[in-house]
Structures are given as C-alpha cells and as structure tokens.
C-alpha cells in the first residue's frame, strides 16, 4: 500500500454500488405498483392549465425526473413562444431559462401572455415548475 492511497478514499466496490442502485429503483417501483402511472396525466393537466393562457407547442415541453434515495425531483421545462419568434432567430433555450423567483420570462399577472407587453425577443422558458417530493 503506498502512502498516497492512505489519503484517497477507496472507490466503492461495484457490488456495493449495485445494491444501492437496486434499493433506490425498487423502492420507487414498489410504491408505484399499486397506483396508476400519474406522470402522463400530471403532464396533460399541467399543459391544459398553461394552454389556457399561452399557446404552447407540445414538442417544446421537457419533463425530467431524478429519483433519489430520499428525495426525487421532477422538473418541467416549457418553452413559451414569443410574438416575434418567426422573425428572430431562436436563442438557446438554456440561455433563456428563468430561475425560480425571477420574474423574467414569466407572463405578468393580470395580463395575458400574448399581450403587447415588451416580450423577450426569443422563446423563453418556464423552469422548475418542479415538484420536489420527500419520502
């Protein structure tokens, strides 16, 4: 054993990683087995609500899930069309991503999203409409 290996934390043996991965994925599956698959319905209802205010493209909706041991995150990214989208080249969606709590890119309350308020020049994104769930 060299002196350097003393300072390095040993990597987890692969069997330990296998067990941890299985425990996480199976815990989620056992819980989900009884109930219906709610994600498609959740997405449809979310979109229906948003579609009442904004004209959205179904293909511009990204749903990400990360199942963790004690915390899972669900992230829904919806790219909103802008008025002059047809004219302006579309900016990278990531660049236009709005941080939660930052009003930039969100429709102003009391005004329909397609009103004549100065709209961002490119498609903006509603981000972290995220649901965080603890078990």
């Amino acid at each position, binding site marked *: 054993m060299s002196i350097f290996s003393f300072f390095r934390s040993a990597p987890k043996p*692969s*069997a330990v*990683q*296998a067990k941890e*991965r*299985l425990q*996480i*994925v199976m815990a989620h*599956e056992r819980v*989900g*087995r009884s109930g219906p*698959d709610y*994600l*498609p319905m959740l*997405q*449809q209802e979310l979109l229906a609500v948003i579609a009442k205010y904004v004209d959205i493209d*179904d*293909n511009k*909706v*990204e*749903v*990400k*899930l*990360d*199942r*963790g041991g004690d915390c899972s995150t669900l992230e829904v990214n919806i790219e909103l069309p802008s008025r002059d989208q047809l004219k302006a080249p579309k900016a990278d969606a990531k660049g236009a991503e709005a941080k939660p709590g930052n009003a930039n890119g969100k429709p102003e309350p009391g005004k329909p999203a397609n009103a004549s308020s100065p709209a961002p020049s490119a498609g903006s994104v509603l981000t972290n409409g995220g649901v965080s769930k603890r078990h």
Partner: protein
Amino acid sequence: MGKIIVMTSGKGGVGKTTSSAAFATGLALRGFKTVVIDFDVGLRNLDLVMGCERRVVFDFINVINGEAKLNQALIKDKRVENLYILPTSQTRDKDALTKDGVERILNELCKDFDYIVCDSPAGIERGALMSLYFADHAIIVTNPEVSSVRDSDRILGVLNSKSRRAERGEEPVTQHLLLTRYDPERVEKGEMLKVDDVLEILAIPLLGVIPESQAVLRASNIGMPVILDEASNAGQAYLDAVGRFLGEDVEHRFISVPKKGLFSRLLRRSA
C-alpha cells in the same frame, strides 16, 4: 434512413441486454446517432444496464399510447455523444406493443437516427415478435451450450418466416451470430462447444465471440455498458464486433487460451 437491428436469442439469460447496451454504445462511439429500445415490457432492465434507471419519466408504451412525445421519452446518455435510450414500461404487459404503434415509432426514429437497436425479450411471443418484425439486421446472441443453440435455430426460423421482410418477400433480414460467454479453457478441455461447432450447426456468419468475463458483472453493477471498459477482454471483443458489423476486417481474438510462459506454468503446477 436508419437501420433497425434486433438483438435476439430465443433463450433468456444469454446476454441480449448486455449486448444491446454494448453494441449501441459502440455504434455511437463510432459517430452514428443510435437509440437502443427495450422491448421487454413489464420486465424492464436495459435502463439499469445503461445506468439511467433514475431518469426514466416516460417510456415506449407511453409514446405508443400517445401519452407522451417521443423526444420526452428518449433519454440521452450522459457518457457517450449520439446515444439515446428508450426504456419500456415496468407496469404494463406485452399486449401494449401493437404492430401499428411500434411501426409508427420506429418510422419516426428512422428519420432521425442512423441505427435503432431493439433489445428483444426472451421467448418467441408478442414482445420478441414485435422486436424482430421490422428488423433489417438480426444479431443472434448465443451461448456455446445446447439449449441456447437450439433456441437460436428456432428464432432464425421465426426471422425467416414472420419478419416483415419475409412476409413481403423482400431481401431477408441479415443474420449475424454473436457467441457470448465463451470460455476457451473449457473448450480446450472439451467441456464446451467450439466456435466452429456452433457455426456448423447454425450456419450463419460470425460477428464476434465475447469471452466469459468478470468485467460484464462489474459493468452492470455500476450501470455502464461493458464496451466502455476498454481494458477488459469483453469490452475489446464488443469493439471488434462493432467494427466487423460496419464492414471492417477485424481478426477474431479471445477464442483460444493464451500461451502461458514457463514461469506461470511452474506457478500453476505448485499451486
């Protein structure tokens, strides 16, 4: 227009999912835009082998049923550019695979991808039939063992009679043999079928021989396709097989016992 490859065997546990993950990754490493689809509805495992099990939101069946868009269900691999995984449902059964639904999604994928690798379930029922029906190429995963060889022969018969190409009288599905879990030492002792024995019986071209390797279990433990373990025999053998699939002339390796030096032979004797 993308090409559809089915990884099939008839028998279970011979390495279809391991090979699908490795082969798809190998094609993507060569720069081809590749998607690997799990057809084993109800017994999903490709996600675990590819290490994306925590990121599954929507699946193949959701897309077939119109509950999600295809690009929402595709999971982009985090390690390899150009590689995507389409997981299947863990809760539904094989009846969810309708011929029209599968065709619609494969057509859509063919527009965007160079290769579509279909990981077949074991058996010759609906899931297996749907995974091979639209195939252009079939990779028959076989172990050098009597039941596996017989089942491979059976699945070759199914390919020749029940695939779309067969039904339409088109050029038949191209068949390739991938011999997995090969142990040259046992072959030398006369305990295991030789490569040539299997080739003689099945009479299809040999794509590759994957040696029995501890790297395969290690890789699946951590959710990494074994082809990314380039130091391992199995990883190298899959890289070679991908090269041959792409038309390269690659010599077969790992099919005979490496010659031992005097030193290791002496050690062996004293052990």
